[in-house]
């Protein structure tokens, strides 16, 4: 436990994302809470900016700061590399997760606990899992934000070239393997559209592969960083 505490302290002192991002999360959360209070029915759209910020916050990149020596203290302090990587992911995802839970708590309080909040249903949780894992996994060996920028470019390009993907993802029934594949890809590219949706039965056939993909991406990222040498940029 002491070791985890040290890791948490390290990433609290030296967060993997810019401090500006923390400020942006604070602003987005305040705006979301205000809009939820004014119109509780708009809770799903109020969460969208937080998810977008989470996309960028989690695209924090491990390899580049490690090669600059920023994590030398941590890597030689007696912490297993795997634990360091898990802590890095946790520190990247924590601000967005906290903001989400705060907004959900406000939404729940407003409804006096009389209804299940849309912000904690399967669709929202899935969206949060996808934006908290895939950008981190993609960016782990790349410069900061590159995974999020790539993801946004893909989403914009596809929405212009294949608008049917967005429509399919929005809840149309699935017929055949090709449509299943397209819908699964759509879930991965447009996870924000899952926010507030209750997923049942056939929806899960689309969402589960997306979550499995996210878990596989994170596992590969862990494995690749755990095995990798960390030379100093200046020494190569």
């Amino acid at each position: 436990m002491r070791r985890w505490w040290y890791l948490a302290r390290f990433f609290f002192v030296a967060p993997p994302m810019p401090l500006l991002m923390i400020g942006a999360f604070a602003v987005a959360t305040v705006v979301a809470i205000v809009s939820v209070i004014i119109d509780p029915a708009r809770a799903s759209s109020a969460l969208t900016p937080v998810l977008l910020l989470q996309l960028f916050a989690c695209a924090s990149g491990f390899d580049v700061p490690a090669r600059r020596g920023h994590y030398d203290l941590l890597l030689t302090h007696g912490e297993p590399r795997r634990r360091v990587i898990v802590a890095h992911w946790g520190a990247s995802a924590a601000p967005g997760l906290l903001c989400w839970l705060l907004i959900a708590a406000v939404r729940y309080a407003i409804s006096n606990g009389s209804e299940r909040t849309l912000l904690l249903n399967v669709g929202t949780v899935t969206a949060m899992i996808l934006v908290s894992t895939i950008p981190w996994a993609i960016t782990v060996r790349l410069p900061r934000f590159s995974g999020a920028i790539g993801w946004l470019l893909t989403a914009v390009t596809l929405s212009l070239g294949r608008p049917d993907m967005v429509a399919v993802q929005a809840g149309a029934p699935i017929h055949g393997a090709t449509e299943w594949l397209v819908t699964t890809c759509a879930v991965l590219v447009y996870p924000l559209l899952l926010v507030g949706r209750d997923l049942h039965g056939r929806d899960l056939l689309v969402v589960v592969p997306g979550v499995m993909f996210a878990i596989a991406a994170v596992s590969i990222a862990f494995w690749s960083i755990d095995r990798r040498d960390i030379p100093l940029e200046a020494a190569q």
Partner: protein
Amino acid sequence: MAPSSVFVSVRNVTARYRRREVFRDLTFDLRTGQSLGVIGANGAGKTTLLRMLVGCLSPAVGDVRIGGFRPRDATLRTSVAYFAGAATLPPNVRATAWGTLGSGEATLADRRRIRALSQGMKQLLGLRTVLSRHPLQLIVLDEPWEGLDTESSRWLNATLESKRDRGAAVVVSSHRLHDLAGFCDEYLFLMPHEARLMKAHEIARVGPVTAALLTDTFDKLRERPKAPFEQPGQEYRAHS
């Protein structure tokens, strides 16, 4: 651990960055309570060797053991201090906060962000942070005197001597030979395609090792005509 037992063991180690060979077939031992100075021209592989000792890099060939363990396992089982210079500190972190990450106590009472500190202050912050832990069994410092003023240099020398006297094995690299001179028990000269390990008494038969003697030895080693087996691409090793 028995006093004066071999703590750092480097055996036939070759380092490469992709196809570029940095050094080859390097062999040396370092005992507890001993200090090794690594001297070499730019690009000779000083930083690479030091990062191998702390498990950040793996040798392409050969074996490195710290206290009998592979370096990455050794950092979990032994207490290691490693600092590779002011440039490795994250610039946006507050100096006071960073200083607490060593032993938990603040090592520098400066609330500015690291990027706002002078080169010497950054260096001092990094050194104080890693050296504040007790006890230390291995200290690996890359150009530690860089940017330090006289007082800070004196503090560093005294701290390293004190830690070494308490049994820490110390490995330091530096271009500032007058800082290394007299401090180390052994000196490893890294040159392109050759490495040479020399004990202090081999460099200075009488009296302490001085910067002039180190410079002279290094120059002689660099100018020494290579034997056929020492030509690039051939076998060579650091030998005492």
